[in-house]
């Protein structure tokens, strides 16, 4: 029976806001707001078959050579954080974006936007770590740009890197290629980078220090592809928006459903504790050295075993599978056996009141 509405208690909410006329932080959060901006503005303005794939890289074929090309800007605050700094992040981030196509990253560009008054010694430290990170990843920084803006017009420094790599295998690896039955693999613990940066920025101290997982993944990727590349349907390093954003983008792009299992997702106790404290969901927190893959089911265990032989994949696990129903949706079985939707993040994750 429908309950009657008491007039003295009936109250309502306001009409929706017509949308903002200005850019908000949520437009850069890796979630739905950013997605809408990309699709509504950038994609429609620059429309072409490379861009419209909406992977983190474009695959370009020139005279029979397949190249992967990607770009990324780094604006992290603070520029030094536990486990790394903005410089190695800028190298590793673009190396990772390029190698998620399966390409071998070769060359990077580096553009610096420096704020007047920024410490030269700190810049030297940052550039030095870029040099080391590039060496470790086997890439060369071959071109660059330097600009300085007035004090107060930038936040210490911003770095843009673009990367070029060559695809030497015949496989097509893309977020559009997920097949029902595929296993979803994760290379290690989630949330380390985002919580490391957040805790430094907000001055939060935890019993054991949480450090960023920033690392170049091209070695790990090359080894997996060399062993059996044909079984790899999609790869992504789940940065902004976390594992949740990656899986949601794949579910939409491939028109499939994805099911994951909470008790299989690795997370460090310190990161889990910080998330509990701050009211944040680790599935939505950025990672900088983790790999999510969709792999043909029959090969999944083999790939996991192979990943575990490398340091950057030593906690690799199968966290779920691709299904034919509930297309476009990611669901998760909770530890106690219930199910819930893991939705696309909207904008910034908001710390809760209590």
């Amino acid at each position, binding site marked *: 029976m429908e309950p009657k509405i008491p007039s003295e208690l009936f109250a*309502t909410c*306001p009409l*929706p806001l017509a949308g*903002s006329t200005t850019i908000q932080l949520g437009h850069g959060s890796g979630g739905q707001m950013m997605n809408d901006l990309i699709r509504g503005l950038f994609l429609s303005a620059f429309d072409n078959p490379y861009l419209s794939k909406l992977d983190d890289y474009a695959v370009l074929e020139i005279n029979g050579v397949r190249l992967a090309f990607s770009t990324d800007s780094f604006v992290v605050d603070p520029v030094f954080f536990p486990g790394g700094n903005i410089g190695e992040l800028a190298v590793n981030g673009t190396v990772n974006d390029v190698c998620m196509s399966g390409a071998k990253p070769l060359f990077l560009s580096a553009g610096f936007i420096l704020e007047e008054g920024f410490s030269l010694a700190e810049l030297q430290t940052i550039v030095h770590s870029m040099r080391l990170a590039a060496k470790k990843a086997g890439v060369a920084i071959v071109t660059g740009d330097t600009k300085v803006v007035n004090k107060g017009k930038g936040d210490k420094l911003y770095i843009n890197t673009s990367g070029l790599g060559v695809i030497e295998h015949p496989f097509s690896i893309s977020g559009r290629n997920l097949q029902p039955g595929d296993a979803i693999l994760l290379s290690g613990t989630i949330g380390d980078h985002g919580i490391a940066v957040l805790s430094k920025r907000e001055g939060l101290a935890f019993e054991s220090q949480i450090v960023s997982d920033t690392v170049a993944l091209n070695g790990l990727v090359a080894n997996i592809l060399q062993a059996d590349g044909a079984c790899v349907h999609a790869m992504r390093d789940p940065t902004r928006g976390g594992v949740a954003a990656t899986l949601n983008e794949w579910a939409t792009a491939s028109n499939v459903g994805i099911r994951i299992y909470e008790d299989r997702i690795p997370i460090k106790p310190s990161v889990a504790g910080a998330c509990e404290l701050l009211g944040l969901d680790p599935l939505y927190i950025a990672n900088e050295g983790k790999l999510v893959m969709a792999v043909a089911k029959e090969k999944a265990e083999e790939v996991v075993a192979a990943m575990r032989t490398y340091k950057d994949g030593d906690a690799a696990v199968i966290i779920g599978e691709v299904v034919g129903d509930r297309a476009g949706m990611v669901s998760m079985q*909770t530890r106690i056996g219930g199910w819930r939707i893991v939705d696309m993040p909207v904008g910034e994750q908001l710390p809760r*009141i209590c």
Partner: protein
Amino acid sequence: MKYLHEYRNPALVKHLLAEIRATVTRPWVIMEICGGQTHAIIKNGIDQLLPEQIELVHGPGCPVCVTPLELVDKAIEIASRREVIFTSFGDMLRVPGSHKDLFMVKSEGGDVRVVYSPLDALKIARENLDKKVVFFAIGFETTAPNNAMAVWQARQEGLKNFSVLVSHVLVPAAIEALLSSANNRVQGYLAAGHVCTVMGWQEYEPIAAKYHVPIVVTGFEPVDILAGVLAVVRQLETGQARVENQYSRVVRHEGNRAAQELINRVFTVTDRKWRGIGEISASGLCLRPEFRQFDAEAIFGLAEVQVEEPAECISGLVLQGLKRPHECAAFGRRCTPQSPLGAPMVSAEGACAAYYAYHRKTE
């Protein structure tokens, strides 16, 4: 994590579910008051695991959801001023006012900052003596002691540039308003564990007796919530109506006396309008007259405005447990977390946002 994993133990959950199934003989309607509990129920899929005779309805215990539109508009007006640093808990920033939200104020150049504690706002005030620092002091009895402490400290330190925009609300008054409604369907309550940590449960005893409803003080983890449900069902099945404490590892009968004393020194009880429910007498807190110099409404001379809320969303019914989020025609279509029609779609604790994020039913 100690004190968390024990309360998420799948075997214990299974055991409690079996107990509930063995106890229940007919349909019962139980309300969890607190948005944190709503969030935990939906996030863990607890509602799907309960026997179908038990209907959980989601109460008005989300501070973001019940903060009246007028006050959100006032916050936006204050935050837009050049001389102001406006500080708030994160989830107030996306709550729509009449024309904009605090995120838009920020993107238009307003200095709006997320803080994790009102004491952080106090720190900002100390460091920015040329600015007026305002903290959006909302919430239930849970956040009241911290907010009282911030005001108390500001007075001790003689800080002249700190003020609070207060919209504190009190749980027992809301339960009474719901119970005295002619359309009340709720037969038993899970009271909010953290509210009772501060206030104890004495003030619930007369309510349980007067309206003959079981009220069980309950925690926030799956085992807590199921133990709370089991306790309510046991009372309902045997015709009892008393206050019980499931959250005994934290909550004492008398609550936290020091926190209560601080609240009483700084705040006094007042009538409050609840968004979605309306005015409830003696249902909130405001600053005592001797703390008026910290009252942002007085400092900024904001006139009393009455704002009409167009009849688009049914959040009033949702907050009273008369409707569930997915029964709203706008749910998941015209109303999403990205473009919320009403506050319950904004906060992770809001019933609509919890339904949207974790198990949309309109597809």
